[in-house]
């Protein structure tokens, strides 16, 4: 018990004293995950819009595929990407393995199904009249699309928060294709998973606290967004 308290104390100290090693790891995590979300969002919006608005044969199949991909374990994504990016793999020439870029790619793959599924359902819930009204009032296709996203903004933000929460907390693909390299591809989760093997728990606890705080923050934001979204529907 005493040991646990001492470790917690040490962890808090690392956090509030802005321990550079600790905050570097946090920085890498956020940089990688934010980049992944930013890159994944525009295509996800487009796909979600098509799924929500265009009736094409096999649409239900596409939707269930997206839902299936949501359930793929992160280590499987990591393994497949590892084999693709490996020196002996088809994309080996890109020399991306064990770089932040590779991690971003992995996280894009992990984030996209969640983004698409959640964006799809929120865009679908926007009234068909919204598109017609905007187009009749002089909006071009892109402007009308932007209007739809604006109307669905709480759903969009909720999707982004949920996807961000998933990828910043995932460890399977981050270890496999990032490699947990210090100053470079070491993220919050890979550090917790592997650095504690050293027997130094304080840093792990501190990083765990960051993730926990982040999860709390994201959930509160999500709750607020849901509230706003429901108000919007009922209004």
């Amino acid at each position, binding site marked *: 018990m005493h*040991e646990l308290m001492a470790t917690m104390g040490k962890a808090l100290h690392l956090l509030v004293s802005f321990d550079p090693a600790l905050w570097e790891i946090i920085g890498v995590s956020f940089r990688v995950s934010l980049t992944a979300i930013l890159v994944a969002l525009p295509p996800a919006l487009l796909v979600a819009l098509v799924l929500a608005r265009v009736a094409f044969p096999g649409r239900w199949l596409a939707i269930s595929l997206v839902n299936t991909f949501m359930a793929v374990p992160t280590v499987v994504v990591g393994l497949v990407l590892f084999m693709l990016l*490996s*020196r002996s793999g088809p994309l080996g020439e890109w020399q991306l*393995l*064990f770089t932040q870029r590779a991690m971003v790619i992995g996280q894009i793959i992990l984030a996209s199904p969640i983004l698409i599924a959640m964006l799809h359902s929120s865009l679908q819930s926007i009234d068909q009249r919204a598109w017609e009204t905007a187009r009749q009032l002089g909006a071009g296709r892109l402007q009308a699309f932007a209007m739809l996203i604006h109307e669905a903004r709480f759903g969009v933000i909720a999707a982004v928060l949920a996807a961000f929460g998933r990828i910043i907390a995932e460890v399977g693909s981050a*270890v496999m294709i990032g*490699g*947990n*390299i*210090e*100053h*470079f591809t*070491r993220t919050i989760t*890979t*550090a917790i998973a*592997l*650095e*504690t*093997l*050293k*027997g*130094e728990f304080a840093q792990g606890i501190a990083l765990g606290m960051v993730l926990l705080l982040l999860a709390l923050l994201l959930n509160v934001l999500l709750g607020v967004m849901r509230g706003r979204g429901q108000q919007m529907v009922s209004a």
Partner: protein
Amino acid sequence: MLKRRLSLLAIAAVTAMLATGAQAAEIIRLATTTSTYNSGLLDYLLPKFEQDHPYQIQVIPVGTGKALRLGRDGDVDLVLTHAPAAEKAFVDAGYGVEPHGVMYNDFVIVGPSDDPAGIKGGDDAVKALATLADKNATFVSRGDDSGTNKKENHLWKAAGVTPDFSNYKAAGQGMGAVLKMTSELQGYTLTDRGTWLAMKDNLDLSILVEGDTKLFNPYQVILVNPERYKNLNTEGARALAQWLISDEGQTLIDAFRLKGKVLFHASAGEAVDPSKAVGAN
């Protein structure tokens, strides 16, 4: 009726608990390094011990740092590790008792077959590392405070180099993962010979430096201090330790082969003889 069923359930539950409790007394928990575990030595040795003794051994493969930490926290009954300095500190601090040398093997420096940094063929590990740092070659370090990592840091220190060149990558992962990374990145790394032999068929790497006495890698078995924790199976732990350094255990260790190669040299009761590690295959 229901009451009777419930009491039957309760009896069954208590019986089950007693059974597991009785079994728990026979379990020995051994923390060892991943490299030892991956070599297959324990899978070969321990069943032979279990045959003749009323114990069941649970092996927990972790880095040396974590293994000693598990011992310090009383989460295991004994440790089998290969980091002399850390082990000495462990015993000196009173966390462990009855240290015994069991065996040794050696480390090798591996890298790409075409060896861009040109360290091949030497038998001076320190000089080789200095060259790698000098040429900013890609070097993947365990970076996990393991025995191998401690050995590596010791060698950097001897070379008078702080390993902060830009292509030095501290991976914080096990030996297998680090070898795989080294192969992918076509870099260099320090590895124990056991993991190397087990994995080399899947790697695009070669041994470049071996045979330096500084690459000598002694293993010790240490009991967790029974005065610090109740509930330790010290009796079982001592039986295992004594068996490992007995004639029977030592003969078996010497007879162990990995892919036809000798990997470990029994060394109980001997003065440490680094020359035995040279050219160990």
